[in-house]
């Protein structure tokens, strides 16, 4: 009997930063409009990603700009409210150090190195946790293909993780 299908695992970027992003619908329009620009980026997996980056030189100045000062100060303060980057422990693997949790829609994967948050579906969460467990045990990640997953889907999922640098180093 063929193993039961787990469904296709999916993963996508959910938040650019755990600490510094407004939710959709409550965007920081006035601030960003003056200081951000939209750029088309190419991810390591070859996918196009349109991103708003706050980095333009002329619009990024904070001198004599009270809102900018206020917000920068607040963002920095927020960074003390979380300690998820446990990179000091001597383990340089983002895959091993990533934090996961389940959600109604599947789950969340948080990469404390990049501060990025990813959203996965339920099969994606299971697959990520299987990869993480194998990594912690020192196993061969290329050989990880939990029962019920198609090798092609696992390969694609792993390619995303490598592209996102959410992998062993």
């Amino acid at each position, binding site marked *: 009997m063929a193993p039961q299908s787990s469904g296709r695992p999916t993963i*996508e970027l959910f938040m*650019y930063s755990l600490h510094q992003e407004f939710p959709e619908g409550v*965007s920081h329009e006035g601030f960003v409009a003056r200081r951000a620009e939209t750029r088309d980026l190419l991810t390591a997996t070859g996918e196009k990603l349109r991103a708003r980056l706050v980095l333009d030189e002329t619009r990024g100045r904070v001198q004599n700009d009270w809102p900018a000062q206020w917000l*920068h100060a607040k963002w920095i*303060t*927020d960074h003390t409210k979380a300690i998820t*980057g446990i990179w000091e422990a001597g383990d340089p693997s983002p895959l091993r150090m990533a934090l996961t*949790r389940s959600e109604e829609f599947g789950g969340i994967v948080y990469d404390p190195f990049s501060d990025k948050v990813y959203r996965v579906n339920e099969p994606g969460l299971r697959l990520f946790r299987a990869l993480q467990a194998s990594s912690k045990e020192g196993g061969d990640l290329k050989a990880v293909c939990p029962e019920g997953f198609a090798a092609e889907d696992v390969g694609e999922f792993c390619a995303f993780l490598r592209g996102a640098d959410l992998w062993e180093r």
Partner: protein
Amino acid sequence: MGAVRASSARLKSPFVVCLWLVDQCNLACRYCYAMPFRGAAMPRDRMLSLLDELVDQEVFDVTLAGGEPFLHPHVLDAIDCLLCGRVNVGVLSNGTLLGPELAARLVDRVAGREGFLLQISLDGLTPAVHDRTRGCGELVLRNLQGLCEQTDLRLQIATVLNAHNIGTAHELIDRYYPRVKRYHFMNLQRTEASLHHDDLFVSEERNRRFWEELEGHMRTLPADILVTGLAIMRLAHRMQADPQRHRLNSTFYCEGCTAGVTHVEITATFDVLGCDIAKDFTHMGNVAGCRFEEVWHSPKAEEVRRQPVPACYLVRDPEGHTLAETSGRA
């Protein structure tokens, strides 16, 4: 399977929770934004049951703050509870109470467990500089020295940049590295308290120069030092950086904060707030008598999350203007 910005899916709980264990402090820092204190402390039983709820909800990080959290008689139980539940714990302390005895008890609770960080606020290398803003400098420096030498606790030093330390604050890294690898430099916030002390503020130009010099200083130091906030200020001031060398500090593709969506604050009287500075505009409910989950999914919490402008837009600046007004979103 594309890397796209996802819609705002409903989360079962926040990622990060900050608990103000006590509403009291043994210092009165000149720029404090938590004051005025009213003396409350979380009752032990409800505090621990609330922490159990946060563990069950798979919150990633819990920060224990105050006031001074070590004034709470059961702070060690709180740390224990969270670490047992495999939740990361950060404690933000002024360092005055962490003498040898309390430090040893803390080490006993934390020993062998990952995910604990102790932040000590230190504004200067000498008591004189520290005391210009905070007080008890000699004691804090002595306790910090003890923590460095007598314990293996993961430490972070937090420094508020002001006119009295901005020329020397970066030397804290030279003094405490490699024992301490995390440094948290903060620009001075315009709080009700700090606005009464003009002598603390530095010009934007001086502030920019600090961050530029720090960036340069970092290039001379090993790459395993984390300076939280450097990425933000690097981009704000358009500084060049070596992305590989400063990999740990280079995360900034962002637009603002996440009040009430991925972060909440819980006060000593169990009020749940979306933001610690825009307190008056982000009250989501109270968990003294009900489960956190009920407040998190309540209409009031949803209202905070769905405000047409971020809560900080409603806070008045020193001239009495709000960001909502100046950005045309009033």
